[in-house]
């Protein structure tokens, strides 16, 4: 039984999907094999931390969607690559609902997937289509979440002795800049961030920049912001309209 999935920017849900059944192989549709490597590493970290067997991971390249390749180009290229690139999908193979909705429809129809794996906070992982599968509940702890994303969370004190939270990558290449991330909470595999009111436009810009960076590092749906200034909240919500490449719940 194999799980197929488009690898996007938000890997947490995909990581959980990869361990919700003892899949024989995880096949990742990707546009850059480095992303497969990064995900393989995340799986390695998670399996080691939780004493789980690591399934085989394979990559399957699909056309990119970026500044030089439009969705139209994507469709043209992927359809043109058939039937040479058609996968031998059988009744036991399952497609995860990652990637854009266009990716999902396109891959489902081109390779004739009959079953799709979905996730719901209440129900957990479940399938729709021909195959009805029972899946394990897979939950990450905050430590799992930070480890697989190679991040560290610390508390610092500002000049006025107020404490704030900093999220930074283990290799020090990035860290949140705002001093107004007041609190965090990890529930239902999501990191909730509670922001304080930035007192100036410069501080507001730091918050906005952090929100964009957090989205890049963790994906759109893994981070839940609370108390963002209205302008940033509005724009963070609508920014997903143009780049819908992450898994959602």
């Amino acid at each position: 039984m194999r799980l197929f999935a488009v690898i996007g920017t938000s890997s947490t849900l995909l990581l959980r999907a990869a361990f919700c059944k003892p899949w024989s192989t995880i096949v990742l549709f990707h546009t850059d094999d480095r992303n497969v490597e990064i995900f393989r590493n995340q799986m390695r970290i998670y399996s080691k931390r939780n004493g789980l067997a690591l399934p085989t991971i394979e990559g399957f390249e699909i056309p990119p969607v970026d500044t030089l390749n439009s969705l139209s180009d994507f469709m043209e290229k992927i359809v043109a690559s058939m039937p040479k690139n058609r996968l031998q999908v059988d009744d036991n193979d399952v497609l995860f609902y990652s990637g854009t909705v266009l990716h999902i429809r396109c891959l489902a129809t081109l390779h004739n997937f009959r079953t799709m794996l979905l996730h719901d906070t209440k129900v957990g992982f479940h399938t729709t289509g021909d195959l009805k599968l029972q899946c394990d509940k897979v939950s990450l702890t905050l430590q799992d979440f930070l480890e697989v994303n190679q991040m560290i969370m610390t508390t610092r004190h500002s000049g006025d002795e107020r404490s704030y939270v900093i999220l930074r990558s283990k290799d020090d290449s990035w860290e949140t800049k705002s001093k107004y991330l007041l609190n965090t909470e990890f529930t239902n595999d999501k990191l909730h961030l509670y922001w304080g009111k930035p007192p100036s436009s410069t501080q507001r810009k730091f918050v906005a920049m952090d929100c964009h960076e957090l989205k890049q590092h963790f994906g759109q749906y893994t981070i839940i912001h609370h108390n963002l200034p209205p302008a940033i909240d509005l724009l963070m919500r609508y920014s997903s309209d143009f780049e819908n490449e992450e898994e959602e719940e």
Partner: protein
Amino acid sequence: MTSKILAILSPPGDDSIISQARVIQAHQPDLVILLKTYFPGQNPTPSSMRLLAWIQGSTELIDTYPELCSLIDIPYTAPFGFQPANNFGAPSVLEVDIPANELHLHVLELEKRYGESDFRFDILPGAKKVLAPLLIPGALQSTKITYSLEEGHILILHDDGTYTREEGLFLSLIDRFWLAGIPVYVENNKESISEMSSLYSALLNSQSIEFQTKNDKIRDKSRKKSPSPNKSIDLPLNSLNETAFKQFQDSGGTIEHLPEHVKRLTLNDLTWEIKTEEDDFKLGNSLELIAANEIVRHWEDIVELNQGVSFLLPTKVGIKEQVRRLLERELSDFQSNPGKKHTRSAWIRRCSRLGIDLESNTENFLIEEITDSEIEYLKSLSSEELIPHLWMLRSAEVDIMTMGEFGVSMFDVKQSMWRESYLDRETKATQISQNLVLRNKEYMFIVNSTSPFERSNILHLTRLSEGRDILGKRTRSQWKPTNLNLRVLRRIVRKQIQTMEKAAGTKIEVLKRILPEFFQDQTKQNPISAISSGATIIQNKQDAIKKISKALLEHMNGKPCTWSEAATVIGGVITTEQKKQFFGKKKFTRAMAEELLRDYISITYRTGKDAIVEPAN
């Protein structure tokens, strides 16, 4: 004629409102069925008020902002509202509440009910999880499953993986902002720019290097911060210097020099007035329109372009707070340096307009009172008169915004960027406020100077004519000189060579032969000089290590060098972006070099001194 019925998801909240409007605009249906999904345990929610207003038309959408003009007659660019392709009018709307897990069954029912019509289900709006059962091949029988693209076209996605493309209408960027809760004012659009296109093109073709004048040097001295060293070797290119004026006149244009630093440029029946200086600042605003014109002319995928997009504050409280904030900043500039023209002028002008006695108030300005006076003044102006004051009434501005096959792109036009930190520091990050970036990936800078540094998101204005493909080319940030520019440069270089020959007492041909290192392409010969090119193609981490090591060994040529020197060489081989991409850090540290390059070099530490780098044994 078969009626067109469009069914789309309408999830709770306003998050999908733009996608929903996009789909309705593209398909031009007779009837829209909004399938308002809700999860078990939740109650159905009303459809978005703004979406329904937009379907009715422009005025109805504007009316969803009751406070927009209640304080000040703020100028705005009205949204279009739903645009019927054949003047058939707005579609009817049917709202149906359905539990999310029963979507498939409901669509099957609709398929039966509208079997005689052109029934389509667009998968763009809504949640993938809810849509998933419909995406499996064979889930629906006669329904057209579609996906609407940014530029308005529709893909009909068949069960066998193939697709058919259908023409459609796109949803304007202006409407997208109004739908999202942000009223906008747009200075120019594709059409108004196209009308002036020949004038803008003539100005671009005549542009030349703006060499520093005596006044510029005096101006630089009056500033607190000293100018970047790059300022003297990365000169601005524009149409507002003597050489450019002459070229413009040779191509049939005329120039009038009006008071207050205004130039009136005319070509055939087109006229453009440009203000070149204000408050001791040189203005580069004219470049926005010239850049926008290049994009309109040469970027084929673009269906909409807007220049000078102001995001307006739609509430009374928001406007008052904004005005107050700006006045505080202006006052602080004035008080910090009242002797300098560039820091004091705006405040002095404002006080004079508001009748405030500067002499008696220098230390004790009551910002609340001044804010109220300013608001009263703004209230007295008409919408048109308020346009020059828009900078006080907006939360941010985008220089150029486009939409096309590749989605939405934003451009910040700058005459030149002498410090790379402009790109990285949020507080210095140009006029567009970072908190209003809609899409980081498509946020680009356009510069127009002789030797800008090279980054993937910096485009040279003279390269825009190469179309969108320029984004993938290494030359994207490099100046493409015109024949006129080359003539000017040749004249200068010829003179300098004569000076050099006289100084060295040796002919240039001889100097070339005996000192070849000074005349070869520095970017190829000297790794340190290659810093400015910053465009080495690197495949992966191993490739990066190999290239860095090779450059270091070449530089050392068997002898040791300092770590500072080595770091400069490394900086010339690999850009900051590449460092982050391949090594996960913006800096290639000494510790990293020690670990990753140990097969090629060795590093010896010296207390209090620069470390020594040597080729490995």
